[in-house]
């Protein structure tokens, strides 16, 4: 059993990437991702990883550089946040369309404006439909584990898709947490030291990547891309099973906490899951049958697992860390509502938009949300969605 060490999560995530034999990395520093970019650069400078670290002038260049590197067969990595991810946006769907298994850490931060450097999910949500595998971490250990897993998932022959690992900015990246690092020799066993690329850019064996396609074949290509992303769930589950066998920690697309016999379920995604767990325990102590459902895998969305987790619920309290302006509330809420539309026994669903731009959400806030939603539901006055705790 490896020893636990106290370490800042961003540093730990960089350490994890440093164990993955990454060939090429290009990161442009941006708060709160900076410590990942800086520490990975230190690891390379100290000779602990023979990664080619490209210093780029923007995030658009960072993702473009690793895309080209990945095209040559390299294992490639980048990390960013907020405006940086928005600048990468143009390239993200191209990476997935070209089936290049790049891994990215997103240290989630609110998107401007107004300028705000703190945590919410408004940066990853606009990238939802880029065709990437998108997953959320809840604590430092998961940030380490999932960073390593992401390369294995991305590079599998039946996947070959980029993976985004979301690590809540500050709430996770800047916290010092106890982390258990796997041994390097075990990581080498889990993750082969080199990729087995489907094709590589090489002058001796010519291949065209990113070619032109008109309406006669474009739809077919989009369907092919959708199918491979949907099917990647099977591979993700297999990788997580292997991880559990080797390292003892279990990962599932939907995690649950005290959901058996729960009629009221709270839904979170990302680092607030742990706070919500304590709130659920407090409610349980008071005798209220509540439970917690945590979404780990956002794309491909685990419809089957989610429906199974909420099948007995009468009230579903969804929380969102981003707004779909002029839309149905938050993006997680709209996803869940549409997922349950065809179910015979649909729960009442409401949405609280919380923790925008780093606003703290305490245990007591989750308790208030649950109590309020239960009361409103009894009186039949429940609102579809609201900005929780907003000053009126």
């Amino acid at each position, binding site marked *: 059993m490896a020893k636990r060490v106290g370490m800042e999560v961003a540093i730990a995530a960089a350490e994890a990437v440093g164990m993955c034999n990454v060939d090429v990395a290009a990161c442009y520093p941006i708060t709160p991702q900076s410590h990942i970019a800086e520490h990975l650069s230190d690891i390379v400078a100290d000779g602990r990883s023979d990664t080619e670290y490209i210093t780029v002038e923007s995030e658009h260049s960072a993702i473009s550089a690793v895309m080209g590197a990945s095209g040559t067969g390299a294992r490639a990595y980048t990390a960013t946040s907020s405006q940086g991810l928005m600048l990468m946006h143009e390239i993200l769907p191209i990476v997935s*369309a070209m*089936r290049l298994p790049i891994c990215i850490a997103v240290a989630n931060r609110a998107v401007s404006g107004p300028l705000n450097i703190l945590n919410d999910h408004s940066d990853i949500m606009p990238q939802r439909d880029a065709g990437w595998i998108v997953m959320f971490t809840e604590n430092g250990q998961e940030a380490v584990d999932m960073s390593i897993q992401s390369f294995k998932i991305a590079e599998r022959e039946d996947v070959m898709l980029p993976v985004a690992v979301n690590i809540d900015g500050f709430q996770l990246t800047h916290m010092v947490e106890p982390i258990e690092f796997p041994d390097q020799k075990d990581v080498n066993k889990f993750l082969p030291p080199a990729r087995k690329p489907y094709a590589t850019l090489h002058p001796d064996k010519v291949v*065209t990547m990113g*070619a032109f396609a008109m309406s006669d074949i474009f739809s077919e290509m989009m*369907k092919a891309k959708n*199918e491979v992303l949907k099917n990647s769930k099977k591979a993700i589950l297999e990788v997580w099973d292997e991880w559990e066998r080797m390292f003892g920690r279990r990962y599932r697309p939907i995690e649950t906490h005290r959901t058996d016999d729960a009629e009221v379920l709270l839904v979170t995604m990302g680092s607030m899951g742990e706070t919500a767990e304590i709130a659920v325990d407090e409610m349980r102590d008071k005798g209220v049958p509540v439970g917690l459902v945590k979404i780990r895998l956002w794309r491909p969305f685990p419809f089957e697992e989610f429906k199974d987790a909420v099948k007995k619920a009468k009230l579903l309290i969804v929380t969102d860390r981003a707004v779909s302006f002029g839309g149905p509330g938050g993006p997680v809420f709209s996803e869940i509502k549409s997922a349950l539309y065809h179910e015979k026994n649909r729960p009442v669903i409401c949405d609280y938009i919380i923790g925008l731009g780093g606003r703290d959400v305490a245990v007591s806030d989750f308790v208030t949300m649950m109590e309020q939603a239960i009361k409103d539901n009894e009186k039949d006055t429940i609102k579809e969605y609201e900005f929780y705790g907003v000053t009126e």
Partner: protein
Amino acid sequence: MKKEKKWPEAWHEVNVGAMVFEPCSAREYHTGSWKARRPVWDNTRCIKCGLCYIFCPEGCISQNEEGFFEADLNYCKGCGICAHECWPKAITMQEE
């Protein structure tokens, strides 16, 4: 035996990442299908100056053995620049 297809047609025939493994095959992909108009030459007016050949942004106009010019309609997008530049007015754009 199943006849091998030159290009993918169904979604499951698409190469991984839509990669193309045959070098210099771009010319076999006929990109002229979206044109709404095509250039038609009146060779009695043509003075063989070659302006259409020079101005064609697609590079799809070539000179035939008699010295007159023709567009390869597999690539012509129907932009009409050739007709616009042709000062003896030998080229007219016809609706497809």
